């Protein structure tokens, strides 16, 4: 780009961001159209039209010709539809959805600076053209020639354009220079400016528009093309466009072609306005304008600022702010810790100050984090479309119900949410819903299946739930498939929940054939891994014949965490507060060793696996006797619980999450790291990972001890105790029984992953 060109690149990012938002809006409204094509809300059509129009307008400014060409046809069809010239049918809505897809692809292509092959969308383009202009596009038409379908002759014409900006035009981010340059791209342009309204330097207001212009444009472009140049400023100006034959050419001795003669001496340019020329300029002939512009209002600036209710900020800036606030939190924690070293009288004095500082820091942090929060609507908006297409492809009748679209979550989480959610929906439609509507009727269900997608905040996390009213998981088939694939042994006795959980095993699929919907054996394991990488969990609950529910639990943010600092030996770790249920010091009688090597603690009639951190991480000097230490009971995947053995709880603290993967390497049982007030690094525990590690450890010990064949599940000090606990175990929750009996299954799964 030469220095003469106005740098448009700086606006491209904003344009693409706006496009993304606009497309979501269009998608949502198209879903509404699809839902009830016979009862269309005119505002929906208008809104979709505006979306396409805006995309086209911006694309024109950036010379994305392919995008402009397609958007023009799409827009023309929408225009005819909203005028009532074309009736809305299911087929038309399907075509609009396809057009929206292509529009999305073309925007992405423009963003990546590539061109989409014409043949990729010529079919849809032809259909749109046929409806919009009653004629298809010739497939051999070169890019940019689609406009020839518009029924306007390509003869050279002279347009006389009177452009009289209102004072506020510049305040609304409009730039006449850009308009001039757009017109120059259309043909030969002569510009005549009227500076009569320009006040003296003492009276001028910096962002008010004072100039007005008459342009003469000689071009073979259409009137529509000329009008489009001004389409975004029509409300901020008086505009009159005439074709030469219809108007008298204005005479102006000062008129000057913009391709005017070159500067006389470019090597030593000096630009001077002499008094004489300036006076001439001030006395320049008045250009007739179609309307009189009112006197500039001195309150113009304040009116403009009052209208601004939001601003667009680059994500990088927000991220920098988040990071700096994170550092502020760390510094504040460090300072607070320093207070402990001060003499008591000073410490008391400082304490109040730190209390206030802490409160304000917390408020700043919450405010900054709120900036990054976005409703899940942007992800949910794509799902109706997905369901419709999949249902059509699979020959099923499915209705989607959504709720909680306005539930907010951190932008980073939103960005990672799309793929797992798509997998889950695909799974529900392909495997969950019965093969045909007839099958559903036979099962006593309505032909129309229902898939529900909901989001809600729960315990400081976001829960996204996908429910279907299909046939539920076919456990016999899942089990048989798992045996066939070597995921479990043929003689393994699994609970229903454990069988359901097998669908998350790598390479697992019960689909008889591979389709483009599912059945490739990748999917749900990837879903679990992706969600796990986000610090989330996914579980499945299924009732045969009734349906299946997937529950995805994710943290609201990946930047900070409310944690409990715990000590083991001389080490300090962080446990997420949202995972902690309670902490207790168990009596010796509440502790039991299982025959398979696992340790459990009895808590109100239920057994909870004990995780000895000091053993897993080889920490010296830790309290090894649980009855002398503390057990922190935490919730893990699937709503299960484990007890983490720690020496003591040091206190609750908000910590800034630092990625271990980015700064070091992944570590089993650790989800991230943070910096404590004393400047030391503390590791944030991954409670699910710890559970898996504890299971592996107990299995190893079990194997080493070769006690697999012991008849009793529990070994306790006395026969009486053994009898009691065995009975309790029999009555305990299925998950706990599963924990005792099914570890081999999981270990198989883990081995499989390693082989993969």
């Amino acid at each position, binding site marked *: 780009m030469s220095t003469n060109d106005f740098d448009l690149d700086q606006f491209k990012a904003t344009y693409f961001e706006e496009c993304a938002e606009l497309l979501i809006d269009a998608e949502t409204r198209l879903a509404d159209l699809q839902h009830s094509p016979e009862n269309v809300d005119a505002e929906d059509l208008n809104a979709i039209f505006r979306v396409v129009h805006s995309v086209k307008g911006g694309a024109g400014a950036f010379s994305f010709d392919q995008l402009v060409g397609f958007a023009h046809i799409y827009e023309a069809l929408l225009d005819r539809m909203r005028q009532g010239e074309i009736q809305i049918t299911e087929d038309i809505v399907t075509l609009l959805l396809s057009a929206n897809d292509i529009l999305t692809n073309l925007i992405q292509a423009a963003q990546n600076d590539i061109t989409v092959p014409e043949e990729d969308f010529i079919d849809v383009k032809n259909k749109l053209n046929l409806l919009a202009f009653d004629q298809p596009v010739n497939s051999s038409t070169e890019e940019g020639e689609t406009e020839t379908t518009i029924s306007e002759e390509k003869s050279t014409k002279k347009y006389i354009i009177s452009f009289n900006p209102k004072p506020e035009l510049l305040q609304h981010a409009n730039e006449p220079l850009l308009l001039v340059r757009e017109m120059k791209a259309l043909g030969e342009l002569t510009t005549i400016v009227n500076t009569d309204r320009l006040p003296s330097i003492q009276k001028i207001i910096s962002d008010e528009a004072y100039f007005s212009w008459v342009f003469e444009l000689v071009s073979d472009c259409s009137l529509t093309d000329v009008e489009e140049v001004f389409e975004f400023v029509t409300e901020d100006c008086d505009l009159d466009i005439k074709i030469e034959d219809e108007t008298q050419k204005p005479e102006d001795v000062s008129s000057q072609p913009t391709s005017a003669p070159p500067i006389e001496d470019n090597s*030593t340019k000096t630009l001077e306005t002499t008094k004489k020329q300036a006076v001439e300029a001030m006395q320049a002939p008045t250009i007739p304008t179609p309307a009189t512009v009112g006197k500039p209002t001195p309150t113009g600036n304040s009116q403009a600022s009052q209208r601004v209710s939001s601003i667009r900020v680059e994500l990088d800036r927000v991220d920098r702010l988040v990071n700096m606030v994170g550092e502020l939190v760390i510094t504040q924690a460090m300072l607070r810790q320093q207070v402990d070293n001060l003499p008591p009288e000073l410490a008391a004095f400082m304490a109040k100050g730190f209390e206030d500082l802490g409160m304000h820091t917390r408020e700043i942090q919450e405010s900054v984090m709120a900036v990054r929060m976005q409703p899940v609507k942007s992800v949910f908006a794509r799902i109706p479309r997905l369901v419709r297409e999949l249902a059509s492809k699979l020959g099923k009748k499915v209705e989607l119900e959504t709720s909680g679209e306005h539930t907010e979550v951190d932008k980073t989480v939103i960005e990672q949410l799309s793929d797992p959610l798509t997998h889950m929906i695909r799974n529900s439609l392909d495997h969950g819903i019965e093969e045909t509507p007839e099958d559903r009727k036979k099962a006593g269900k309505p032909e129309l299946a229902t898939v529900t997608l909901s989001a809600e905040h729960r315990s400081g996390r976001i829960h996204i739930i996908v429910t279907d009213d299909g046939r539920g998981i076919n456990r016999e088939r899942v089990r048989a498939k798992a045996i066939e694939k070597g995921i479990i042994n043929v003689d393994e006795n699994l609970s229903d929940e454990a069988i359901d959980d097998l669908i998350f095993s790598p390479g697992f699929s019960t689909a008889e054939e591979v389709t483009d919907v599912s059945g490739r054996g990748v999917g749900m394991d990837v879903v679990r891994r992706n969600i796990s990488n986000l610090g989330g969990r996914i579980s499945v609950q299924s009732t045969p014949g009734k349906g299946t529910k997937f529950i995805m639990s994710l943290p609201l943010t990946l930047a900070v965490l409310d944690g409990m600092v715990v000590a083991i030996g001389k080490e300090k770790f962080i446990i997420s507060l949202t995972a902690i249920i309670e902490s207790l010091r168990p009596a010796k009688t509440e502790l039991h060793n299982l025959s398979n090597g696992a340790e459990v603690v009895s808590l109100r009639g239920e057994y909870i696996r004990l995780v000895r951190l000091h053993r897993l991480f080889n920490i010296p000097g830790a309290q090894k006797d649980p009855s002398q230490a503390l057990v922190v009971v935490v919730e893990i995947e699937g709503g299960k619980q484990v007890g983490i053995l720690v020496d003591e709880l040091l206190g609750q603290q908000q910590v800034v999450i630092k990625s271990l993967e980015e700064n070091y390497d992944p570590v089993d049982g650790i989800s991230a790291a943070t910096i404590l007030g004393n400047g030391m690094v503390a590791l944030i525990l991954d409670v699910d990972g710890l559970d898996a590690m504890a299971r592996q450890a107990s299995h190893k010990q079990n194997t080493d001890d070769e006690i697999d064949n012991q008849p009793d599940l529990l070994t306790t000090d006395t026969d009486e105790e053994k009898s009691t606990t065995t009975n309790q175990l029999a009555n305990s929750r299925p998950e706990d029984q599963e924990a005792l009996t099914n570890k081999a299954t999981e270990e198989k799964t883990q081995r499989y992953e390693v082989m993969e």
Partner: protein
Amino acid sequence: MKLEVSDQTATIELAPSLDIFVAEELLALFVDADNRSLDLNINAGGVEKASTACLQIIHSAAVSCIEADRTFQIAEASDALVTAFKDLGLYSKITMRS
């Protein structure tokens, strides 16, 4: 951008980006020079972008200056600035001098 005064002449070096956001700053410099009845010497060699808002101000400053019988000069005008003057149709109102 700042105003440097020497022998009743104010020199202003224009910013590379004369967008609408610097218009207020530019206006303040010209008003200051006008209040002090200074001649104006504008160094425009580094201008890479221009906006209508800033060109209006420059033009108004020029006219105000010359009407008060003071000198107004733009030296080393960059191609970007000259093109912007041309595009807005102001080229006919100024004279190039080597």
